[in-house]
């Protein structure tokens, strides 16, 4: 292992998945997926609920072990469960779909974001971690919440904590699973601005989305999944005509988001131009 490992050859894909299958019991969720993401690209992964987007993303970062096929991250093969692999995890940031993650003990924003500084064989926090955590929280606009327990923050704020946790290690590749679902417009704009700055600095992004929204100007390519297969790989497709493109900005709230869904849908009628 030499220093050259730190620099991915520009010709070498950042993510390279070949013939990826994933089965969970009787359900065949991914059915032969080939996906390549090159350095500097911003690839949107689109598809309806249940089309396999999250399963694919989890297979790409080592959470799901594929039933068949191979994944290479930053030029290195991904071993089973990520163990024993030579992948440089310090360069990869993953933002899971908002979940009930978090254990039986409340923890502060600082503690959760700091856990993003651990990766690979690094099991202890580096010097100056508090400063790094503060910078990451600043990027998602939650600098003043550093000592607040995460479980008392709103759903959208918790989502932004997860983004900060991925950003804190200053990754070269960011893999995001619906990062802006349930995040308010001002925060989405701030998030898009942060992403733009990072992408201009050379960040490669794979992002699961329902619609391109605020990230649209950044997205260079779209991959659409259907029934566990790639059905489109190329220019971002226009939204369906019933989603009036010009002024259309709303995020579809998830059914399980909160009880205010009905109310927020009603407000969607007067989305600003």
């Amino acid at each position, binding site marked *: 292992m030499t220093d050259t490992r730190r620099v991915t050859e520009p010709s070498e894909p950042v993510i390279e998945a070949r013939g990826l299958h994933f089965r969970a019991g009787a359900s065949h969720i991914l059915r032969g997926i080939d996906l390549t993401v090159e350095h500097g690209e911003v690839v949107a992964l689109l598809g309806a609920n249940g089309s396999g987007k999250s399963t694919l993303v989890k297979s790409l970062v080592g959470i799901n072990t594929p039933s068949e096929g191979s994944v290479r991250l930053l030029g290195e093969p991904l071993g089973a469960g*990520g163990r024993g692999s030579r992948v440089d995890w310090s360069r990869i940031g993953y933002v899971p779909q908002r979940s009930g993650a978090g*254990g039986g003990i409340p923890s502060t924003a600082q503690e959760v974001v700091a856990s993003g500084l651990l990766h*690979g064989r690094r099991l202890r926090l580096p010097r100056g971690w508090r400063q790094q955590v503060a910078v990451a929280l600043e990027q998602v606009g939650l600098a003043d919440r550093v000592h607040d327990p995460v479980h008392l923050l709103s759903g959208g704020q918790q989502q932004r904590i997860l983004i900060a946790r991925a950003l804190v290690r200053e990754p070269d590749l960011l893999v995001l699973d619906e990062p802006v679902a349930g995040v*308010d417009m*001002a925060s989405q704009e701030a998030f898009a601005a942060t992403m733009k700055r990072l992408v201009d600095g050379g960040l490669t992004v794979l992002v699961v989305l329902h619609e391109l929204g605020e990230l649209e100007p950044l997205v260079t390519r779209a991959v659409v999944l259907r029934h566990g297969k790639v059905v489109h790989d190329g220019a971002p497709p226009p939204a369906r005509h019933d989603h009036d493109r010009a002024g259309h900005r709303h995020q579809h709230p998830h059914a399980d988001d909160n009880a205010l869904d009905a109310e927020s849908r009603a407000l969607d009628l007067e989305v600003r131009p």
Partner: protein
Amino acid sequence: MIMLMLTDPFMQRALIAALLVGVTAPVVGTYLVQRKLSLLGDGIGHVALTGVALGWLVGAGMGLTPNDALAIPGAVVAAVVGSVLIEVVRRRGRTSGDLALAIMFYGGIAGGVLLIGIAGGSSGNLMQYLFGSISTVSDADLWLTVVLSLVVLTVGVGLRHALFAVSHDEDFATASGLPVWALNVVVAVVSALTVTVAMRVVGLLLVSALMIVPVAIAQQVTHAFGRTMLTASVVGVVVCVTGLSITYWYNVSPGATIVVLAIGVYAVVSMLAPLLGRRRPVHDPHPDLPDDVDLPAAATERAAAAAKECR
């Protein structure tokens, strides 16, 4: 009177053991509560009983005196094997952790009683392990307690950020390339060592209480992981040492006294905690951000008024 207690060599050993257990058990308990495995300590405790009997059986076979010389090493081995086994079952995901724990409970007790009979003892011999016998702590026992406690504390505190990361969000830890399986086994092994350390003080049946109740108390007063662990350890030391001291003057079971005291503290703190919380100044948690919609003029005015009220 306190000087009298502190100069008693039996009491000195017992106090040091109680102090170590008081610090150690809540550190490990914090991770167990974090993973929602509060009852893991109980499961390990039951399996350790089989280890005690097994040690007794081997000791008797080798003609060792006293014939329980291998009881504690036996408990350490059985507890470590049992806890790793639970982790394997949990990882495979075939059996739920809950069911695996239940099977360990029954198997551990039944195995212990069966083996002690074969070894020529009676289930009465197991009582001191089930309920603790801190007053019979020997110098050798104390050294084992010191060494095991130091191992547990070094790992539990030294690796706290990594163990927190794995306990908090296992998927994210995996996607960070952390050695998740190894860290899970570390938590399991450290829990097993803690159970055997605490066995002499409170007994296998009450071990888990020392790991969990101080954490439950700490949670009433703090909302951060690190502080929960620290507070729980302080509470653990206070209840262990206080409980043991009480038994110097009153002839009651040290283990039971410590646990009842801890639960008493829990009850008092949970009644007082809301009162303490009220002293903090009320603040407005809402960020002052524009809405995602254009509001009519009247609503904008009301929003400005609401913001003013909160300031």
